[in-house]
């Protein structure tokens, strides 16, 4: 209970700060949209091959925008040694992990809410009715990405060349999430249902559950040395 | 390249790389040991100076 209360408190603080500073969200929006244009110019997207390319392109866009968000994730705590102020308090460190993960999930979800329909418009896709299901899959993938991303963002907090290092260590670990979401989305686009790809869904949920648990358990050791 | 060529290529690469790594490791250890000896003698000097 205390864990959830602290999580909500910290998450609300981050949301409020973001509403004032608007640093992460705006750059992520802009970058996500920009990527769609870059994709359009650099790939010859034949309409009959959209089923194979759409999931991959969308996920590339989300991975890159998400990494932007992760790089900024602990920015609020850097000024004035605010991280110390949090660590001094009787807060459970797991709450900080959950709040930061949740915050990045919120940011990425907001970007995705805009980018997915935009993709459908820009690339003339017809399958609007599939978007809710696709969105659910993307959300599960986003959670997985943010969970590991938050742990690694905390781990690389004091490293030199932090922004470069983070994707370097994060992306190989993300392979199950990337493959699962892409296969699931492909299946949905092709057949309209998850159907045969159900094992991928289990893998994706398993990934989320395992690393949320690991994060809550070891985050106290990650954040203060 | 015949089959023996590939075999020798593989064996050659593996044992060369391992040998190089071993030599590199030995060099790093030697360097650290020299540094440590220097530090120890510097400490002794300091202690003598204090006494």
């Amino acid at each position, binding site marked *: 209970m205390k864990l959830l209360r602290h999580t909500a408190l910290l998450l609300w603080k981050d949301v409020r700060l973001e509403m004032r500073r608007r640093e992460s969200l705006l750059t992520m929006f802009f970058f996500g949209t920009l990527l769609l244009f870059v994709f359009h110019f650099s790939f010859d997207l034949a309409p009959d091959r959209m089923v194979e390319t759409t999931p991959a392109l969308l996920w590339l866009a989300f991975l890159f925008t998400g990494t932007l968000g992760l790089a900024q994730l602990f920015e609020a705590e850097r000024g004035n040694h605010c991280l110390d102020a949090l660590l001094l308090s009787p807060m459970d460190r797991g709450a900080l992990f959950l709040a930061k993960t949740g915050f990045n999930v919120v940011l990425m979800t907001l970007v995705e809410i805009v980018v997915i329909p935009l993709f459908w418009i820009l690339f003339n896709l017809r399958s609007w009715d599939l978007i809710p299901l696709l969105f659910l899959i993307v959300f599960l993938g986003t959670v997985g990405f943010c969970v*590991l991303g938050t*742990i*690694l963002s905390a*781990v*690389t907090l*004091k*490293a*030199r*060349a932090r922004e470069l*290092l983070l994707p*370097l*260590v994060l992306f*190989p*670990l993300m*392979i*199950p999430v990337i*493959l*699962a979401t892409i*296969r699931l989305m492909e299946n949905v686009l092709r057949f309209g249902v998850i159907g045969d790809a159900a*094992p*991928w869904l289990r*893998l994706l949920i*398993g*990934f989320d559950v*395992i*690393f949320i648990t*690991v994060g809550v358990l*070891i985050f106290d*050791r*990650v954040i203060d*040395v | *390249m015949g*089959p*023996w060529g*590939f*075999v020798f*290529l*593989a*064996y050659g*690469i*593996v*044992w060369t*790389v*391992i040998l190089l*790594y*071993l030599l590199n*490791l*030995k060099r*790093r*250890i030697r360097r*650290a*040991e020299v*540094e*440590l000896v220097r*530090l*120890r003698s*510097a*400490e002794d000097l*300091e202690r003598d100076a204090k006494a």
Partner: protein
Amino acid sequence: MEPGKQRKGYLGGLALIAILTGLYWGLVQAPPDAYQGEVQRIMYLHIPSILTAYLSFFLVFVGSCLYLWKREKRDDNLAYAAAEIGVLFTALTIAEGSIWGKPTWGVWWTWDARLTLTAVLLLIFVGYLMLRSLLEEENRAATSGAVLGIIGFLDIPLIHMSVYWWRTLHQPPSILRPDKAPWENIHPAMLIALTINFVAFMLLYFYLLSLRFRLGELHDEIKTRRMSGGR
């Protein structure tokens, strides 16, 4: 220190003898494979090296867990040493696989599940080494490394699963199937050659590991001495 050094010398000598015996059995005594011919001899290197690589990553995991739990520098040294040597053996495994693949499959690289998995392992643990080299403060480097070591190890089964499904669901099983063991009807001499080589790699592995571990200890001692006074 002296007896430790001597023990390491024995270990190294033993490894050398085993390696030479392994070379003799692998290159001379063992018969060529019925299907693959002489190229199959690369397997006497390939299998022991991938096993040592996996052993490394397991040791990284064990060392990382122990370090986070007890915070003893010794455990972190073990993890760091195992990671470095693990990267070496993973890279060698990929090189051997590639050289074996060229005459067998006709290409140096194919996105086969096992190859892909090994490449991902290499990427993860190269990331581990980079992370450690970019963190200046020692405790933080050790802690961060430990966290990455644990996460990476826990991720391996998931990556394994996803990469295998990715290939099997998407590509019809082709003639390029390395997951079917190439020594189905195995000759006893082949088995002996493989066993000797496996023992040789283990001895070599622990020899290298003990050297790398010793290097970590030396670095620690240098750091503490620098901290306490002396320039």
